[in-house]
Each structure stands twice: as structure tokens, then as C-alpha cells.
């Protein structure tokens, strides 16, 4: 390996034996510092030492979901940012793009995720879902149908569901603040 050794740059001594901060942790740390949560969102860390698992609470201050408080769980694996974060809504809510299991249909959480995107892009996307529920990408087909065919009826259903009421026999979580 002629010449290679002499070219070795002045690199500092690397830590040995001890566990090192992982690449995923480094990236999440950076992403967390760049979050702009505003007044409608806050985070919650059940275990503050584990920054790869946390909750995000969204309190929309306008739109049809105003007055509600929605909780999402973020689970990030060691393959982040190659893999997107896994995001689930932990409440049973009535929303065309979120199913009753809490799965979220947001393009950047799946097919359009790229390592250049960050956690801020994801939380902005989530917030947008509450301002502009999208009937053309339905995950809860009935809710999407309601939104498409009868916007006023859909609004009423949103209010009913947020109060913990039932729609077509399905009971929803009470999410009003």
C-alpha cells in the first residue's frame, strides 16, 4: 500500500472500547435541534435518554380539527435516515388519511422518503393533514367518502368523533382539550 501510509492525515485518536454515539443518534440529534414546533406542537420523551422514540402532540389552532389534541408516536431505527421514521397515531380518530389503527398516509413517510428529508418535514406534513384532510388519498375510506360528498356532514362527524362519540357504530377517542 505504497504511499498511502505517508498520506495519512492528522486524524485524532479515536475512542476505543467505549460505545460510540451511533450515526442514527447523531442525525436525530441534529434533526431535533432544527425542529420548529411553533405553538401548536410539542414533543414528549418517555425516556429522555432514548431520543429515537418520542411522542409528538399536535393541537391544531385552525381548521376542522381545531380544539383537538392529537398524539403521534415516532419510532426511529438505527437505519435512519436511510429508513423513514415510523409514525403512528396512538388514538382512534376520524380522519380520511389516518386509519383506525393509527397508520398515517403521508407520502414522505413511505414512498417519497429520502435521507435528505428531516424530522421537521415529517411534522410539518402531519400538521398539514389536520389543516387539509385529503379525500383523494384515503386510508379511512368512509371518512374520505364523507368529506368528498358532504363537507358539512364531515365537519359534524369530526366534531362528534373528537368529543368521543360514535359514527356508524365506531367509537372514537375523546381528543378535545
Amino acid at each position: 500500500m505504497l504511499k498511502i501510509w505517508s498520506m495519512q492525515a492528522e486524524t485524532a485518536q479515536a475512542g476505543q472500547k467505549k460505545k460510540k454515539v451511533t450515526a442514527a443518534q447523531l442525525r436525530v440529534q441534529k434533526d431535533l435541534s432544527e425542529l420548529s414546533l411553533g405553538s401548536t406542537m410539542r414533543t414528549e420523551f418517555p425516556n429522555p435518554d432514548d431520543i429515537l422514540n418520542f411522542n409528538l402532540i399536535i393541537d391544531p389552532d385552525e381548521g376542522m380539527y381545531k380544539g383537538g389534541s392529537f398524539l403521534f408516536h415516532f419510532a426511529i431505527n438505527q437505519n435512519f435516515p436511510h429508513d423513514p421514521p415510523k409514525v403512528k397515531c396512538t388514538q382512534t380518530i376520524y380522519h380520511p388519511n389516518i386509519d383506525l389503527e393509527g397508520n398515517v398516509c403521508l407520502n414522505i413517510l413511505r414512498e417519497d422518503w429520502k435521507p435528505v428529508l428531516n424530522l421537521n418535514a415529517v411534522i410539518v406534513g402531519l400538521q398539514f393533514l389536520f389543516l387539509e384532510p385529503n379525500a383523494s388519498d384515503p386510508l379511512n375510506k368512509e371518512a374520505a367518502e364523507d368529506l368528498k360528498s358532504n363537507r358539512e356532514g364531515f365537519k359534524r362527524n369530526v366534531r362528534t368523533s373528537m368529543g368521543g362519540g360514535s359514527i356508524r357504530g365506531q367509537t372514537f377517542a375523546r381528543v378535545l382539550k
Partner: protein
Amino acid sequence: MTEEVMPDRTTGPESQQRWKYLDTILSRPGPFTDPDWEPGPPVRSALQSAKILCSCLYMIFIACIHTLILDRGAGGLGCEILKNLALSGFKDIHVIDMDTIDVSNLNRQFLFRQADVGKPKAEVAAKFVEKRVKGVKITPFCGKIQDKDEDYYLQFTMVVCGLDSVEARRWMNATLVGMVDENNPESMKPLIDGGTEGFKGQAKVIFPTMTSCIECQLDMNAPRAAVPLCTLATIPRQPQHCIEWAHIIAWEEERKGDSLDTDDPEHITWLYQKALKRAQEFNIPGVTYSMTQGVVKNIIPAIASTNAIVAASCCNEAFKIATNANPFLGFPGTNNYMMYTGDAGVYTYTFEHMKKDDCPVCGNLAKPLVVDPDSILQDFIDSLAERPEAQLKKPTIRSEEKSIYYQSPPALEQQTRPNLTKKLSELLTDGEEVAISDPAFAITFKFKLIFKS
């Protein structure tokens, strides 16, 4: 071909014949040889004494029962690389693999025979190659690359990888970068990484800390193709959509808490039945058991000849790095990345992938920092603001285990605030690495704390 009818090539004139061309390359310079290079026995002995780690068998032979040549990612590279290294004159090869041989491997993993099914791959492959190539010593290890520590990796001259996952590559890369010690040139191990996906493949050489690393190249990996969740949930169009639906949505709903094991035939059968039923509802033909397996395990067909091409390129680079007989890929400031595209004609392109200054792995290595273990965290943070090379005014600090102090988000700041009045020795241990980020800097600084009162 059975082993009995093969001529014995381990002794006699055929054995000398085998190394004839290799000896020619090593005994005279060529048009591209470095002027400082001296041919002859020392080069030959450099080759023979090089200790090579081939972690290429690791995980790449995922069992799959399919008529096509199926494998995951880099499949089959291992057999090719091991054979090539042995035939290139390397004498001391170590091989890591965690898998056992499955009957479906036999069509392309030519070091294995029917009688070997069920045995560990690393062992069988090592025995086979030792038998065929006289004088080569192959040391198998059956386990994960993650089972071994830095001391293990330090013994090798270089590492050749044909791993199947981005995750395994990142682990290997971070380990080799972390091992580099400026006072010990031997601590830098060239990493040769090969990978294939169908008709496409790539071979690259990394000199940890000196040239672009796997982490720098992360965005070169094609993202896993995914279908929008809403398509799966509402309007499936293809049989694969029905399988993904069963995999992602139906399993969660109906078998919650039951963790999906893609190697469990019962689980695959359940998904297959679900997908089939859904496909019938939407009038979509084509869902089969093997397709279910393929979609769920994200199996990409491995093409034996693509593996052969990529493995050949990897082993040629290993040979050139060990002997200096010709310029090799990855020399700092030159090309380090060869991509091969065989799906639209034959095309290769070789270029220099640049090292990223803000790479979280090789962008900046942990620097030693002497601290007083009895001082409190707040004092340590204040001292960071006065450091000449980087004035970290709003530092966020963590170790692998702990969030030491976070400036934001507010919840985390509040939770880590009590640490400010704690002694460093209560939060960290001597020699532990911390990562410090600051909104004023794009990169994250890493320090290895050395306690000295």
C-alpha cells in the same frame, strides 16, 4: 460435476501452471505500474502474508424457495469472492457468515453440495476452497460481523465485504473508521465493498478517514420502492399491492402483538391466504405463495453473472492494493467507485465519490478532551464556549447511552436540565465519547473525555 471425477490440481505441474500468470504480473512492471514499484519476491510475499477478512458471506444467502435465482441484495457474492481471493494468491483468508446452507442456494453457490444442506456456510465454503486451492488457509467464523470487536478487525490487512444490507455496511464502515489511530498506520484497514441488485452492481474501495465512506455515500443507495399506503388500503391494482396490504395492514389488525417472522411458513401462508382473498375481491390475478415470500422479504433476484462481475472487480482491487502491481481504485484523490449497469446493455462508470465534510461517521473523528470529573456539567458547557477552534455557545450533548443536555426541543431541555448541576463523573465515564452539536455548526463534534482531576 462431482468431486470424485475432478483431477487433482493440488500437486504436480498443474499446480505450478495455476500461478504462472500471477507470477508474470508480479515479476515485471506494466505501463501503469508506479515507478517506485519493485517487482519480485517481496511483492509475492506481501500477497501471501496479507490477512484478508471476507465478511462477504454474511447474511447474503437468504433462503428462498423459488425457481428463479433469488437472493437478497448481494447474493452469491461470497462464494465468488472467496474463490477469487484464493486463486489470486492470497494465503490467509478469514470468512464470516451467520447462515446455514439451504437447498435453494445450490443453483449458484457453487461451493456447496446437496449433502451440505443445513451446515454452516462459512465452514463448508472454507473447507471446499482449501481442498481445491493448495496452500491457502481459510478460517471460518459462523456468526454476525457485530459479534466481533475492534481487536478482531485490527488483525487484518483489509476487509472485503459483500453484505446484503445497508445496515450491516454502515456498521462495518463505522467500526473501521472508528479504529483508525493516527499513531498507528496499521490501524487503517482498506474496505472493499461489493454489492449487486439484479443486473446492477457496484464495487468501491474505502480508505477509512481518508476517502469517502459508506456513510458519505448513503444517498447513493436506491430507496426501497414503496407503494402509497392509501393505494394499498383502498385501490390495489397489482397482486403485490394485495400482499403488501396483508403484510402491513391486515397483520397489524388481526395478529397484533404476534411479531411477523418472514422465515415462518405459517406466517407466510397466512399472509398469502389474506392477499389471495383480497385479490379476488378486487379481481386481481397473480398472487402466489412465492410472490408473497418475495414481496414480504423484499427479495430481489440475484443474477449469478452480475455477482461474478462485481466479485471479480472487488478481488482485483484487493490484489492490487496488496501488491501495488497496478494502480488501484480508491487511492485518495482518484476514482473510488465503480458502478456496473447491466440492465440496459452493458455500461460501467467509474468516478470519485467525494468525502463529505459533514459526514457523521468520518467527517470529524473524536478528539481527546481532558476534563475534571468533579466539575459540574454547567461549567463544562461554559468552557466549550471558550474553546478556540469552535466556540460552542449553545451545545447539545449526548453519549451513546445518555442524553446529557439538549437545548431543544423544550421538553427534552426540561428533562435534561437537572444534569447541569451534576458532576461529570455522575453522567459519564472516563474515556467515553460524547457528541456535541450546536446550531451554529453544520457538523457534530465528537470528543473522547479523559478524566483528570
